[in-house]
């Protein structure tokens, strides 16, 4: 029997693949790597490309497109943590700026202090209303 390595491919939004493979190919930042069973432990970043798992025994190769991510290799386990979005430091920075700007736009005249007492009073009132509706329903039956 030929040697296999366990492969998990997961992304934040779902589990993509889990199974055995004779060989795994992944687009690492330093160039494509091929991982055979008993590979030395390795952690690296992935760039956009294709992760391929060769299940061996003449079965068809499994393909996954990743837009980036991380890969952890241990002698008998490979974990691919795929990104669902294109990541780059400047893109992330732009997204952060955008999120900040949105907050500034939406809360133009905000104050630093939060009016706790007022908020609490209003929330209590809302909860009392909900409870009253609930009670109304129960007494009717």
């Amino acid at each position, binding site marked *: 029997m030929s040697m296999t390595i366990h492969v998990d491919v997961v992304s934040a939004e779902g589990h993509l693949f889990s199974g055995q493979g004779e060989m795994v190919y992944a687009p690492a930042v330093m160039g494509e790597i091929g991982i055979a069973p008993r590979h030395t432990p390795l*952690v690296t970043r992935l760039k956009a490309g294709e992760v391929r798992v060769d299940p061996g025994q003449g079965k068809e190769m499994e393909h996954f497109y990743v837009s980036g991510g991380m890969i952890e290799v241990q002698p008998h386990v490979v974990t691919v943590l795929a990104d669902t979005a294109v990541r780059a430091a400047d893109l992330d920075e732009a997204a952060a700026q955008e999120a900040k700007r949105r907050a500034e736009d939406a809360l133009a005249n905000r104050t630093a202090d939060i009016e706790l007492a007022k908020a609490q009073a209003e929330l209590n009132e809302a909860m009392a209303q909900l409870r009253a509706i609930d009670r109304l329903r129960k007494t009717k039956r």
Partner: protein
Amino acid sequence: MAVGKEIRTQINSVKNTRKITSAMEMVAASKMRKAQDRMTASRPYAERIARVIGHLAMANPQYKHAFMQQREVKTVGYVIVSSDRGLCGGLNNNLFRKLINDIRALQEEGKRVKFVIVGNKALGFFRRFGGEVMAQITHIGDAPHLEDLIGTVKTMLDAYTAGEVDEIRVAYNVFVNTMTQQPTVSQLVPLPEAEGEEKTELGHHWDYIYEPDAKEVLDDLLIRYIESLVYQSVVENAACEQSARMVAMKAASDNAGSLIDELQLIYNKARQAAITQEISEIVSGAAAV
């Protein structure tokens, strides 16, 4: 016969309302199922990434990332996850109430709070009551994507790295079951000590090769891990929203049903009274002739 016209229109309008609420109930029920699926789908990623981080932490015990170090807490940053839309019972209110209690306790200790918000309802809340909001994202829809959250989470993490915030917590609703949602505040950063499972599972250290280098790799992993935790809470909150809406709309439909019954009874009585009166008028008229 023009009896009880007002009552009839009222019955019709309540019936129309019931149509809407029962439609919303069904929509929420189907969306809830999908949201629950997304909730379970996002779990493996967080588990795997936590495991990898655990391995790396064991491999380099000397390197402590900033996200793993405890420091004196002066300012607490909250990531608040709320729904975009209302009509979901007390879901958001319960969360905000819990939050207010938390904030009050912190303020009594002389600590400051900053916020990053997800969802329209939290935005409305802070618009009304003030508070230091650093970033926000709204309208993420029923199927939130991790990429929508990157910027918002990064703002918070940057603030942490810059020392503006010493602890990050996330506030959201935990999906217990369809009827129960538990408003929860949990700590994101510094990462709470890893659960003891790693130690029993692997007794030895892995000697990793890092590309490009250990710190960068760990950095990337930690950021992704925290993002995935926030993503998970957003997805979970979405499932809570749908189930809360389903329950609220079911209650509203039931209420409309009993209201219709009552109105129908009043209408029938009025109609009967009118008929009786008419007959007695005819009879007395005939008797007079």
